[in-house]
């Protein structure tokens, strides 16, 4: 595979940060627009792929801290479980906040929806951690195949490694 061009790497480097902003927007507006935790989390997780294309393997592996994404996954999953426990006098996953508030008109500017927004944020954390760790693990496995076995090929985007 030939090295990727400068245009691709530069655009990836700039565009990755916009993907974070767009993913957080999708997560935070998940209760009133199409989207939610899973979709926005998948969008945010493309950040690592863009970073991988932009900076190459060695700098990518030196820069990314896998433990942080593991912590993100853990916090998201536990928060999702605890938000489910919030409705426990009635039932698991009972939306007690929205029920306690009573019916509100739908024409309000920002609907609150009880625990739905909180669960969106928790699931967003979880999906960001999981998919970023998948990208990280799979890339580190591919990289050691290429360099360790001495096959020589597939050095593609390692051009900017120093």
């Amino acid at each position: 595979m030939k090295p990727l061009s400068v245009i691709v790497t530069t655009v990836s480097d700039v565009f990755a940060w916009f993907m974070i902003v767009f993913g957080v927007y999708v997560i935070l507006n998940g209760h009133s627009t199409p989207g939610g935790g899973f979709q926005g989390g998948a969008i945010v997780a493309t950040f690592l792929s863009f970073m991988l294309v932009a900076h190459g393997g060695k700098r990518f592996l030196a820069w990314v801290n896998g433990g942080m994404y593991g912590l993100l996954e853990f916090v998201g999953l536990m928060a999702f479980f605890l938000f489910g426990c919030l409705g426990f006098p009635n039932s698991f996953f009972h939306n007690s906040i929205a029920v306690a508030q009573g019916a509100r008109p739908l024409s309000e500017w920002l609907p609150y929806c009880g625990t739905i927004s909180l669960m969106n944020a928790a699931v967003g954390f979880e999906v960001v951690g999981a998919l970023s760790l998948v990208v990280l693990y799979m890339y580190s496995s591919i990289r050691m195949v290429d360099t360790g076995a001495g096959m020589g090929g597939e050095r593609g985007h390692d051009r900017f490694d120093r």
Partner: protein
Amino acid sequence: MKKTIFIAAVIVLGGLLCGMFEAIHPFGVPVSVDMDEYILTRAPVDRSAPNVVTSMVFDYRGFDTLGEAAVLFTALTSIASLFRDGGKKE
């Protein structure tokens, strides 16, 4: 020879699929909509949630979403255990 048998099997299966699609309800007219109508009318009133799909994912069918998150976590755990040697060649 083998490929001919495969193609014949796929064609027969496709014919069966098209026959099945003739037998189900016509497109655009679902048959039993009672539960969906109930949720469509009650979700904005009870939960003040304008997005009915999100309300269903996180509230009415929260157990499904918990299982979904568990499946994602299980897949991540499997991948981490497959690559747990940190990239050294065996």
